[in-house]
């Protein structure tokens, strides 16, 4: 996992804890300290999450071409459905706040699993198909 992703995730986690325990001021202090230290990098991470690869490859499988205006290719769209992030009240099932105006729902196994960003879609995809993908040349 890239440093910027780790920073973003840690930042999300601190924010959630600080909101959940408003009377425990140490969390707010930690949040402020973290934002002062890493705020710039965190912003960069959020921007980078939405950035598409230079080629037309789907950022999820990174092999097939993206489908028209969609972020993902046809096959990945069958697995991950982009939806408006307003449907999420707090955090996605991946444990992060929505990273942009769209989140992704992985829905094949009945209960949908929400993912905050394309980074988490990529992680999820690699967890599912990693044993196959790492053998492809």
């Amino acid at each position: 996992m890239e440093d910027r992703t780790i920073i973003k995730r840690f930042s999300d986690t601190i924010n959630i804890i600080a909101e959940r325990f408003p009377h425990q001021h140490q969390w707010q202090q930690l949040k402020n300290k973290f934002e002062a230290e890493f705020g710039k990098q965190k912003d960069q991470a959020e921007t980078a999450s939405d950035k598409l690869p230079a080629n037309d490859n789907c950022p999820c499988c990174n092999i097939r071409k993206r489908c028209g205006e969609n972020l993902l290719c046809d096959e990945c769209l069958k697995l991950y459905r982009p939806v408006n992030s307003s449907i999420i009240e707090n955090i996605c099932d991946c444990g992060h706040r929505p990273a942009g105006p769209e989140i992704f729902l992985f829905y094949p196994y009945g209960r949908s699993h929400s993912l905050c960003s394309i980074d988490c879609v990529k992680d999820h995809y690699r967890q599912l198909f990693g044993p196959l993908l790492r053998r492809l040349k």
Partner: protein
Amino acid sequence: MIRTSIRTQLIIHQLKYVVEKTVKDKLLDEVIEFGVLEGIITNIWIMGTADSQIHAKLDISVSYNSGGASFDISGNIKDRVFTGQDNDWLHDEADNNRSNCPVWSEAINWFVKLCQQENLSLKWGIIVSGREQEIIDKFRLVSLTDEDKTQNTNSSIVPNSFFTELNMGIGFSQEKFGD
């Protein structure tokens, strides 16, 4: 016991989709239809082989549920896998049907690509629970003699998202695919 529920038909449809995307053998379609309706087919293997050795394997297991009380039949005769005597290749365009599990579709897609990459030939095998001779005679099957190099290697499990009765294990040989 013949099972003719809509669910059973959908399970057969899902399994035929696997055939269509891999070995495209009409005989296996027929074996699946008969074997699932009769509740005797327990495993379907789609194998990537070379020099009579199995280097990649999709092992699809089928369990049968009856009403509220469920029971599983597991193939316990792992060394007796049956296959067709010759491949009856079909060349129909694959039907990309939405009633098939998209996770399976993707896993099968990568599995076939890996087999192509390693120049492995795709073939199939089945394991049945009981009525072996009947199946052998009816479909003119023979015992599979290829050496299974995927045995005792780590396999990934991909459950079917529509049917709990179906599970897919994926294994690879160390020789061809390493860790």
